[in-house]
């Protein structure tokens, strides 16, 4: 299990290669990467604030929960903070398991959690203006489906 919170850029493909190499014996690896989108062509940067200490703690705890709940062989979480440009990767999650269903579910579970329970906040910079991104109700709903 590996949880990384960093301001430096990273390459999801290279991380996937390293993660897979470290997961001998598994049959299925799923990865998710989230990328800075510029829907209106006017985004200068996405700024990500986080809560040092709590972030690592919360992500580690959730990765452990995912490992146990879905019987995963391994979990990787990388999340950036600081100032990011459009098309840069923001974060990635990868899960390794014997079978595909567990790997998919583990990654979706991690993502739904990350979106609304890990202490990150996004601020958009557009044409000299800044605006905090609002939490989406749909993200809260997505998380609720895991509560049995």
């Amino acid at each position, binding site marked *: 299990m590996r949880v990384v919170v960093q301001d430096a850029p990273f390459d999801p493909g290279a991380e996937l290669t390293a993660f897979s190499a470290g997961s001998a014996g598994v049959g299925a690896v799923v990865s998710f990467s*989230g990328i800075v989108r510029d829907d209106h062509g006017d985004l200068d940067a996405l700024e*990500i*604030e*986080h*809560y040092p*200490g*709590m972030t690592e*703690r*919360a992500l580690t705890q959730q990765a452990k929960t995912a490992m146990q709940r879905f019987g995963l062989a391994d979990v990787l979480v990388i*999340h950036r903070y600081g100032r990011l440009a459009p098309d840069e990767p*923001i*974060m990635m999650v990868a899960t390794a398991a014997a079978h595909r269903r567990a790997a998919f579910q583990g990654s979706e579970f991690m*993502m739904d959690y*990350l*979106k*609304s*329970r*890990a*202490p*990150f*906040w*996004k*601020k958009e910079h557009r044409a000299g203006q800044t605006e*905090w*991104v*609002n*939490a989406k109700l749909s993200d809260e709903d997505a998380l609720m489906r895991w509560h049995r």
Partner: protein
Amino acid sequence: MIEILYFAWLRERIGIPKETWMTEAVTVADLVDELRAREERYAIAFEDISSLRVALDQELSSFDAPLSGVREVAFFPPMTGG
């Protein structure tokens, strides 16, 4: 004495990322009342706590939770990671 942290727009409205505060508050809600009474920027920032979240010693918690034994309280808007 507890450490209070603010994040995102809450940090910007209050104007500082953290401060140490001497409190007699029993619950988080009591602490919020104390802060609101300090200055208008706190009153405005904490106007609607339904739009805020709280963590006690780096664990998500709720506004009716007791503060006893807590060293670090963090207030912030709903998270938008991922």
